[in-house]
């Protein structure tokens, strides 16, 4: 039986995110990154994770840019997000098509034109995989992420900003994702960029509402 392979596929198919990278869309060179293996690095990551976790709940605007070699212009979509302290997430895409995703207790539900559908790893692996990773990035669940990725830190960081890069640690995941670069500032996640093995990449930017911290 191969039905459970879809659990992995859900991650494999987090498709077509490209690393726009934080520096002019070119992505930092490998020489700028080191594995976060030292005690200091772990301490730093835990500090970032604590800041992110302390910032919850958060909500605001998100905008996704999809850059593909075959496209004349990037595809843009936008909407809002809302993340609770217990991990429940609302992801509302408003443009170009309105669709609402709610993740409650690990169950993903999509509402489209009033009709609700449960998203499973089998039915829609890419959507399932997307929320598996995004949910872990918002509060930097290191243990969960390290199961699939090698976490790297830049050799040098700007004062207030933090960055980290995730490299897939298995071949199957690496065939769909080259790297994920995450940037933020203090307790806020600002950019997530996913680079595919080819030149295509996806960038998602988050803007937080002033009243987010309730």
């Amino acid at each position, binding site marked *: *039986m*191969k*039905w*459970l*392979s*879809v*659990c*992995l596929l*859900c*991650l494999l198919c*987090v*498709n*077509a*995110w490209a690393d726009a990278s934080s520096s002019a869309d070119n992505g930092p060179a490998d020489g700028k990154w080191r594995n976060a293996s030292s005690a200091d690095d772990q301490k730093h990551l835990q500090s970032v994770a604590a800041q992110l976790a302390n910032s919850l709940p958060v909500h605001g605007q998100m905008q*996704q840019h*999809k850059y*593909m*070699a*075959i*496209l*004349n*212009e990037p*595809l843009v*979509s936008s909407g809002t997000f809302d993340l609770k302290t217990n991990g429940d997430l609302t*992801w509302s*895409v408003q443009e*170009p*098509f309105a*669709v609402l*995703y709610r993740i409650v207790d*690990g169950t993903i539900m999509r509402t*489209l034109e009033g009709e609700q559908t449960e998203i*499973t*790893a*089998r*039915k*829609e692996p*890419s*959507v399932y*995989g*997307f*929320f*598996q990773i*995004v949910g*872990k990035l918002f509060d930097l*669940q290191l*243990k*969960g992420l390290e*199961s*699939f990725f090698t976490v790297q830190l830049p050799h040098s960081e700007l004062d207030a900003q933090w960055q980290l890069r995730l490299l897939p640690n*298995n071949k*199957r995941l690496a065939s*769909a994702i080259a790297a994920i670069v995450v940037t933020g500032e203090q307790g806020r996640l600002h950019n997530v960029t*996913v680079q*595919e093995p*080819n030149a*295509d990449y*996806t960038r998602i930017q988050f803007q937080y509402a002033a009243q987010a911290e309730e």
Partner: protein
Amino acid sequence: MSMGRAVRSFQYACLLLMLTTIVFGVAGLHRLQFNNDLLALFPGQTEQSAEVIANRKRASQIEREILLLVHTSDQAQLQVAIASVTARLTDCACFAKVGADAAGLAGEQTFSLPGAHPALLLSAKWRDRLQNLSAEQLKEHTLRRLLMRPGGFSAAELHTDPLGSLADFKDSWQSDLGSVRLSDAGLAMVDIGGADYALMRLTLADSPYRLEVQQTAGQALSQAFNELRALPGADLLYAGAFFYTQAGAEQARSEISTVGLGSLIGIVCLFLLVFRSVGLLLLAFVPIAVGVLAGLSVVQWWFGQVHIIALVFGSALVGVAIDYTLHFYAKRLDAQQHWQLGSDYRRLLAPLSLGLLTSVAGYLSFTATGFPGFTQIAVMSSAGLVAAFVTVMGLYPILLRKPSRHGLSRPLLNLLNWGQRRHQAVAELFRRRLSGLILLLMVVLIWPLWQSNDDIRQMQNAPQELLDMEEVFRTQLGGRRAMQYILLEADDYPQLLNRVQAVDAALAPLQQTGHLASFAALNHWLPSVQQQRANQLLWQERVIDSGVLESVLISLGVNSKAVASMMASQQEVPFIEPDAVLVASGQYAAVPLVFQRDDKVYSVITLNTPLDTHYLASLVAPWPYAQWVDPVARTNQLLQKYRHNASGLLALAYGLIGVLLCGPYGVLGALRVIAPPAIASVITLCGLLVVGIDISVFHIMALMLVLGIGIDYTLFVRESGGVSRSTLLAIGLSTVTTVLSFGLLALSGTQAIAHFGLAVLLGIVLAFLLAPLAQHK
């Protein structure tokens, strides 16, 4: 004390045969090969019909899988424990695959289909969609699908599956995932009643029916279970055929050891109480030992190997040879100082020889049941009985030449005298015509209650705990595969796919009418070339010629070069030829079974419950190339056939023995000799029916044993001219030892074994009570 020349020659011949048996038996011991595959006990193992092949292949796919669900209140410890258990189980050669993460759970490779193209592979849903949606609706649907997804889509996906129709077709390649999801640590998790359970999937390296697999995998799993159960707040659920076979084997072991120990203690106590000699007790086991040795040698020579169950049951039946010893000892004990080897030996020879002949005839009739295991049991028992007989007749006259030092003890003497009177009284009661009429009336009144039971499930006694856990897996993971299936035959693979397609078209609507939950057919993996052609025409018309695809690409902003490349990839798509794909499909467990036999090819359509078996069977009947296969019903039919055959053989055995006995005793005398076991059998059947037990093949087998042993009783009564003290002692002891050996099986937790034991218990006790009827007036 002198023996006649002929008798002495017979004794020496027996002695020589015994020594030869011992020499050849011991010399051949190192060549013995034991087969412990329980499936080899059942018929059809040597047949190679398509149905047998399909059954075997399906069973091997299903029976080797083991699923575990583990819950703990400490997720961090769970991850460590799962890793440790995975490593431990992987180390055991008894497991082919062990998985707890997504990749491990996936097990085998994902099915790959070279040449897969959306124009060729359309699901029924997408064919319907292409036929009914307008070009504008189709474009809107496609754009929405691509643009509303967080994370978007890849260039490769847009190129290979622009509408998402291919993904939908491939969706049927996956079994239902149910509520399985990935944990933070990458473990596959299932939510049961609000609690998280980690799912592990194991595949045995060999059949769970093999005893060494049960042993090694059982040990490995036991250690793993201990480790998992030690987790805080642990809850462990498991499912798989392995656990049922393990529980069955464990129960059998427990019952055999309990019954065996009880029987041994009882027999030893009896011997010591009656014969008061440890030497005689040990000597009593010599014929049985020689019998087992001879039985093993003959079975090894005849069949090339000895089945372990034949060894166990055959040895038990050879144990009936203790009766020969009992007759010899009883005669000697009763004679005391009057023991004259020559005359007493001659008196024993006729009934023992006739008893051997009838017992061997009875056991050999087991071969007609058609069970290969029973054939071995019959051959081993018969050879063993002959060897035991020659040991008694060859060795005992040498060792027991002198009279017994002890006579019958006073209490035993009193008991035997009382027993003789009671025994005669019972016989007199049955001799009356009124008794015959009452018996006849009883049969007439009770016969309408006749109910037979040929359900194979009476051989199973699955623990409720396993059934409950199985139900959890069934509801959580959607494992609802029915035992029944449809087997299709064709001359070649293209024809096979066409036929599967035709049956698929008839089955698909039944999912809406409630006759069938769902099903998996080969064309869900690969449509026939005709269907591929039809799909391609539809695709060309509704996606390419209508301009939908090009319009979608332009709306997305795909550059002209890429549009040209993608449109070009839609031209002249070659059909996927089935031969190579289907030959290779055997390596993918999820693909419906496909196999070749002689010059025909076959495929199985698997069905999921609930389903209306009668409706489906009648639906399939008109197709000459399709066969409705219901393995449980087929096995039940087989058991019914064996019951009929065994009943006929039982009647035949009575007739044959009756004819054999007409020579020495005349017609009336022969009838008197066979009447006691026959009446005992009829009363046993009536008794079982009155208490509501349905008659099965196992009862008939028990009645064969009643005939085999019961006829010994009547022969001795007949030969001794009545129920003498020594005869009563011998057949009384024989009845007690038989009840201890077989009657205790009535306490078994498995219905079939319990019924066998109950029938032997009733039949033998009645045959003993009625034995004086054989007495010549």
